[in-house]
């Protein structure tokens, strides 16, 4: 029953597997991306529960009903930091990040769902705090990275918003954001 035991080490060799995938940006994300490039952040408001989702999913995950363009609402480009971390990037094959950076979850003014993976700049990393108020730093048309309608990295915002910086407003009290940690 037992396998043959040997002192010889099993030999390994690296095998790089290369598979190509097409990233398809769905119509709803393409629309969101287009609106972002026009300087607008537009979400969808569920006709049943009234919650506003940014970016829009095309449905309400709580009510499980489909949402369309007629459910669109604009939200502001100011937000509260609900949680964050300071990342020390792990150097794996394909990693482009080298320096420490802040990733935060934000709740945009006017939205009910929070957005994640947002970068915060303009403040020493270790001074970032929960409840801090931030505003979007928009990229100029020249600065915008990525192709038109390309993907949903950074929750779709990185196409047009470079990062967020402190707005200088007083912090939001914990009770108001603690339901939006994620």
């Amino acid at each position, binding site marked *: *029953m*037992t*396998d043959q035991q040997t002192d010889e*080490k*099993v030999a*390994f060799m690296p*095998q790089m*597997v290369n598979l190509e995938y097409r990233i398809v940006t769905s119509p709803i994300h393409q629309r969101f991306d287009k609106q972002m490039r026009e300087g607008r952040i537009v979400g969808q408001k569920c006709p049943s529960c009234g*919650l506003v*989702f940014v970016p829009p999913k095309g449905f309400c*995950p*709580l009510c499980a009903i489909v949402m369309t363009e007629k459910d669109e609402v604009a939200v502001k480009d100011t937000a509260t930091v*609900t*949680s*964050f*971390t*300071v*990342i*020390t*990037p*792990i150097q*794996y*094959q*394909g*990693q*482009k*990040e080298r320096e420490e950076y802040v*990733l*935060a*979850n934000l709740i945009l003014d006017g939205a*009910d*769902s*929070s957005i*994640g993976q947002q970068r915060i700049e303009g403040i020493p990393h*270790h001074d970032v705090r*929960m409840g801090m108020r931030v505003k979007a730093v928009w990229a100029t048309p020249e600065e915008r990275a990525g192709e038109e309608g390309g993907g949903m*990295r950074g929750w779709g915002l990185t196409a047009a918003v470079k990062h967020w910086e402190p707005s200088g407003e007083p912090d939001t009290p*914990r009770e108001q954001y*603690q*339901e*939006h*940690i*994620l």
Partner: protein
Amino acid sequence: MSVKTAVVGVGQTHHKKVRDDLSMAGLLREAAIRALEDAEMEWKDIDAVVIGKAPDPFEGVMMPEVYLADALGCAGKPIMRVHTAGSVGGSTAVVATHLVQSGVRERVLTIGFEKQSEGDTTWGLGGGRSGSVGAGGYFAPHMRAYIDRANAPDYIGPAVAVKDRLNALKNPYAHLKLPDITIEQVMDSPYVWEPVRRLESCPTSDGAAAMVLASEKVADASSKPVAWVHATAVRSELGQFPGRDPVDPQGGRDCAADVYGHAGITDPINDVDVLECYVPFSWYEPMWLENLGFAAEGEGWKLIESEETNFGGKLPTNVSGGVLSSNPIGASGMLRFLEAALQVRGMAGEHQVEGAKTAVGHAYGGAAQFFAMWVVRTEKP
């Protein structure tokens, strides 16, 4: 309408950063053969295999049950593969248990594994793209929110990290062996995803864990003590929506309430002798102690401060060393369930908790949104 089911054999590999002495099949067979030997069975006695592991891109083998069928003796037998993110080791054991409880199968081998040295997890989690922050980067904000909410002293996380690694010294299979670890050392170590330090994070391990689940008829004939499954439960919740609390997820509470209800546990801290819960980053211990009802909201950290979750305490937690000491992701959840079973069988050797009769195994995954738990006991249900 349920067949009483027990764990009649367990086996695991020596978990290490790199098991370059075995192929993936070999790794699984090391655990499976130990489980079969413990169960006093042979490959031919097994009716079905249920295998679980984390995302396929971690090793670069799609649907590995197809490749592994031969190594796991499945020519002519059923093999299926469960995948529920990090909780997979637990939910795999739950599926295997259902197969026996339903009467569909009599003896089921369940196995979870990960051979992370043959891939790159951080790469895998990022879908092969730049900017992957790994699990730690994802969970760090939640841990920060817990510390803030509970006003927990900052040495609590390090204390858990030390406890689990010292426990691991008593577990011959555990990966990390850090006999000299101290709270000061952990607090001095650098952050990876602030507020989480490297020494407060789980390793990546190559490893496998296996159990043989059998019906009452088979278990009664066993010459060794068995671990009776009194309750199992799984819960999933949406990962992100307005009003979600990822720090104290409803899914975890509901999962615990389900198993406690079916196992007759009404006062967890007193009714449970040993807890094996899924703690990949130190702060998850106080968080889960609260989420699973062992401590009131905001008070989980006090159980650590008073050393009640230490080996000699009221609720020894992760005496195996836990995920913080060994983390072959696909097996980690199953190891929690396995260690719980070992305890109530009285077969945990050096890390046996004296007189353990009721143990809880717990696993979680995804955005702290998938949960799997079981309650095992020395006595039959």
